[in-house]
Structure formats: C-alpha cells, structure tokens
C-alpha cells in the first residue's frame, strides 16, 4: 500500500517537474521567437522605410529630369529638329544613372502611324544607345495614361528589353496650343527593391535557426515526458495488480473468518450429546450474523454444546482490519480450548484474559461476553469482559442482563471477572450484539442506540425464530443509517431456548 502511494507520489513529482521544464522552455521559446520576430519586423520596417525613401528619391529624380527637359523637347519638336531632340534625350539618360532609358513616343493620330524613339543605357558597355520603338506602344499604359494625365507613374511592369521590373514616369509633350503631341517617358528600374527583398528573406532564415532549435528541444522534452508517463502508467498497473492480489487474499481471509463462525446447522452435530430422549436442536435454535466494515473484521461469536450445556460468546476486538482479525482468530481458538474444560464463564474469561494479556505490547484488547446455558434447566450463567448487556425477550417483556462489568480481555493480566446467573424460560430469546449495532451511525451522525433496539423489538411483536429477530434488527439498522457508510463491524447472535419438553430429561 505504502509503496504504491510512494510510486504515485514520485510519478506525480516527475510529471510536475517535467511540466515545469516544458513550461519554462515554452516560455523561453515564446520570448525568443517573439523577440526575433520583433527584430525581423523592425528590420523589415526599417527596410521598408528606406525602400520607400529610396523609391521616393528615385521618383523625384525621374520627375525632375523630365520636368527640366520638357520645355526644350517641346521647342525642338515644334522646330522639327529631331537630331537635337534625340541628343536632349541622350543627355537625360547620361546625366541620370538612376534611369535605364527614356522613351519618346509621338501621339498616334487617326492614320495609326507610330513614331517612337527609345534612348537607353547599354548595361554592358555603359554607353548610350537609341533605337526606334518597334512595338505597338499605344497598348502600353505609360503611353495611354500619359496622354490623360499631367505626369503619371505606371504600375511596375516587366521590361522586354531588360527583363527587369520597372516603372515608367510618363509626361505629356505639348504644342504651342497646349495639345498633347507626344509622350516623354523615364524608365526607372526596380531591381534595387528586388535585391532588398531577397536579402530580407535570407535574414529571416538566419533568425529562424535558434527558434527551430528550441522547438526541437521542446519536442524532445515532450517525448521524454511521454516516455516517463507511459512507464508510470505501467508501474501503476503493476501496483494495482498487486493490490488485486492483496484483495483476493483478504477475500480468502474473510472466507476463513466466516468459516470460523459456527453455523446454526452445526447444532445438529451436537445431537447425540444431550440425551437419548431429546436432541439439542429441539432445545435451542441459534442464528448469528456478521457484516464486517472492512474485508476482514474484529468481531466474533461462537457456540458449542458440551455436557448438556450451550457455551457461547460474542466479542469485539478493538479496531478493524487485519490486526483485529489476527487477535480475533487467537481469541476464538483460546475460547474453544479453555471452555472445553471450564464450566464457569468468569473462569473462562479469567483464563482467556491471562493468555491475551501476556506479551500484549500493542495494547490490542477485546470486549467479550461469555454465557453457559444449561439446556435441561434453562439456567444461564454469564460473565462480561467489558461487553454490552445482552437483551432477553421474555414473552412480551424485554430485559437486559445485569452484571458487574469486568475489564476487556488483554488489558490487565490480573483482572477479575464475576459470574452472574439468571433463569431463561422456555420460549425466551437472548440477543447478543457488538457496538456495531448500538453505534451504527446515520448521515446526521446520530447513533442507533439501545432505545432503537428496544423500539424495533417492541414494534414487531413476537419472533418465531432467532433468524427473524436478526432480520428485523438488520432492517431497522439499514433503515436508520440510510446508506451511510458502515463504520464498524455489525455482529449479532440470537438464541431461542425452547425448553425441556422431556420430563425425564437427565439433570446434571
């Protein structure tokens, strides 16, 4: 029992420690992830800001470049001096390394004739080149939107020439009447931004390494905890198997104990011992009942017939469980042995007490009542070792046996016990019980008490058999406690004296 509790406590401790470590790891992981994510976000934000700044700067350069050039372009276009106009365009590209090229596209009239010119920087040589725009630029947003707006930035698009992402600032070129005659476009590459993005992802990968490491550690720990848990569960099931075994053994012990209590049918076995004219079973009827509070209890009763006398006892070893059961077994054996030679209940108790007291270091003791009923005369001799007063149901009347109480046995080796005597009339019933009956407790912590015994007996009138009496009493107790847990062993013994019908019954 102790070991299983110990194991359980240890398992719980391991689980708590493991849970704490997991919690700490998770917390560390959480904070490190949070801080690294926060720093990444911060970096990204800074980059975003710098990117935005850079883009704004480049845009400004492009816009300014065109704004400055437009009056000159308009003048040269009006004069029809294309060579000078192209040189202006080349000048723009040369002076602005941020730009990859400048488009010049005449407005396409109803005739559908295109006239477009593109000046660009050769990335390999660094020189400025120009070429006629071969494709249909009227489909391009820089041309279409450029016609409508007074300066327009296109969405980033993939350039056919450079195979890079870029944006074009389109600005209208007007004649002296203010009509748009051509579109001037500055191409701004977006590769700087692309490069930045790639770098950002690389940085994020770096910062993920410790986080993933921590997560792996957490998983490892989780695995360890699961391993420990499974092992604990296995151990617990082993322990519970051991417990089952103990329970089985206790069940066997209970069987043995029950077997030690005599059965009323055993009265028949004493048949030959009384006389030739009358059987013992015609003189008496006995019923006993025992309900232990635990699997094995400390209550006991016994009876046997010797020399025309019924020797009986009922007792209660203090405490419950195995210690009480051991003392009970010993007490039973000693009673049989002492009462086989001794006729006086007081002397039986005295001898039993000496044996029980010698070497009793644990202080275990038993209350016990011993009676000797002369079957021929109904004379009952009895003595009590600290035990409750039995009841005698005599016709309609109810009385309790009176005596001077001796000590429970096992306390004082030199304790004194006294014999008392009473007459039991034919038809009388003697009821003995342990304190499990009087001290049966209900949910309100009230005790059953002797008055309820009296009430139960009075309420049911005459009893035909001892068994009837015990059944009535069991029902009364069950109704009283009403499902409350049984706290003590409940043991009763009832003896019906039928009397001696044979006139020539031999007197001892």
């Amino acid at each position, binding site marked *: 029992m102790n070991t299983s509790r110990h194991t359980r406590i240890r398992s719980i401790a391991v689980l708590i420690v493991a849970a704490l470590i997991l919690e700490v790891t998770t917390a560390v992981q959480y904070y490190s992830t949070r801080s690294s994510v926060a720093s990444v976000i911060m970096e990204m934000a800074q980059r975003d800001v710098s990117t935005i700044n850079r883009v704004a700067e480049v845009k400004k350069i492009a816009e300014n470049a065109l704004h400055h050039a437009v009056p000159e372009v308009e003048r040269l276009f009006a004069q029809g001096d294309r060579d000078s106009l192209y040189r202006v365009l080349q000048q723009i590209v040369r002076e602005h390394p941020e730009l990859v090229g400048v488009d010049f596209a005449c407005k396409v009239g109803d005739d559908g004739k295109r006239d477009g010119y593109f000046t660009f920087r050769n990335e390999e040589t660094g020189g400025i080149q120009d070429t006629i725009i071969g494709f249909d630029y009227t489909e391009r947003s820089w041309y279409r939107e450029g016609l409508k707006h007074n300066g327009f930035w296109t969405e980033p698009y993939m350039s056919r020439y450079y195979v890079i992402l870029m944006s074009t600032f389109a600005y209208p070129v007007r004649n002296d009447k203010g009509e748009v005659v051509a579109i001037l476009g500055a191409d701004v590459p977006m590769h700087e931004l692309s490069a930045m993005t790639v770098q950002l992802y690389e940085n994020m990968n770096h910062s993920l390494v410790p986080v993933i490491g921590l997560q792996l550690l957490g998983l490892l720990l989780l695995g360890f905890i699961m391993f420990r848990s499974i092992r604990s569960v296995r151990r617990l099931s082993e322990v519970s198997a051991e417990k089952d075994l103990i329970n089985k053994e206790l069940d066997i012990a209970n069987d043995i104990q029950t077997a030690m209590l005599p059965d009323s049918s055993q009265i028949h076995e004493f048949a030959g011992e009384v006389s030739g004219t009358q059987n013992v079973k015609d003189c008496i009827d006995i019923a006993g009942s025992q309900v232990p*509070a635990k699997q094995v209890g400390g209550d006991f009763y016994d009876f046997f017939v010797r020399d025309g006398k019924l020797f009986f006892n009922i007792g209660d070893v*203090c*405490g419950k469980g195995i210690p009480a059961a051991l003392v009970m077994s010993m007490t039973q054996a000693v009673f049989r042995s002492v009462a086989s030679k001794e006729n006086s209940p007081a002397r039986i108790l005295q001898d039993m007490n000496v044996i029980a007291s010698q070497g009793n270091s644990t*202080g275990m003791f038993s209350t016990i009542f011993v009676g000797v009923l002369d079957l021929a005369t109904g004379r009952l001799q009895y003595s009590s070792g*600290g*035990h409750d007063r039995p009841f005698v149901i005599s016709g309609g009347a109810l009385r309790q046996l009176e005596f001077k109480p*001796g000590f429970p046995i096992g306390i004082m080796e030199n*304790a004194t016990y006294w014999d008392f005597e009473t007459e039991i009339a034919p038809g009388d019933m003697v009821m003995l019980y342990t304190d499990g009956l009087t001290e049966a407790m209900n949910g309100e912590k009230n005790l059953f008490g002797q008055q309820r015994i009296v009430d139960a007996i009075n309420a049911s009138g005459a009893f035909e058999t001892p068994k009837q009496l015990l059944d009535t009493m069991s029902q009364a107790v069950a109704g009283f406690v009403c499902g409350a847990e049984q706290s003590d062993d409940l043991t009763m013994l009832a003896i019906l004296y039928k009397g001696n019908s044979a006139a020539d019954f031999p007197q001892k």
Partner: protein
Amino acid sequence: MQITKTVENDNLTLSLEGRLDTLTAPQLEAEVNGKLDGVKTLIFDFQNLAYVSSAGLRILFMAQKIMNKQGKMIVRNANADIKDIFTVTGFSNILTLE
C-alpha cells in the same frame, strides 16, 4: 476529530472534539505515543467529545499505562454516554474521572 493541546509547566491538556473511534483513534495515538516525556499530569478534556469506541479505549488505556509510571491521568467532562461506556467496559475502575 479535533485535538487541542495546552501545555502548562509539566501539565498537558488534550481537549478532544468530535468522535474518538476507529477512524480518529490513530490521530490521538500519534499525540500520545512517545510524546508524553516529562509530562506529570495528563488531562483529557471530553467536554466536546460525543463518543468513544473500543479503538479509542485502547488509546486511553495506553496513555493510562504510560502515566501510571510518570504521574497521573485525569479524564474530565465526559458526557453520560461516554461514562456509560466506561462503566460497561470496566474502564471507570482504572480511569480517574472528574
């Protein structure tokens, strides 16, 4: 069951409240066993004790045996039910009741 301990010089008073039975007797046994060294007078106050079972009697008996050697033991304020139990079990002969 509640046990209240009061120490005055070499007097020890144990005030019990509730029921002294199989379930609670080990509690009292723990207070008595090996803890009475130097105690000259042991007083049990049963003012608020409802009931004593045989398991409780055993502890009282153990305490009485110890106190017989080193001083005296007194049981105070036991109610009628408990006094009855002491009478029936013969304990009233070995205990000092007040």
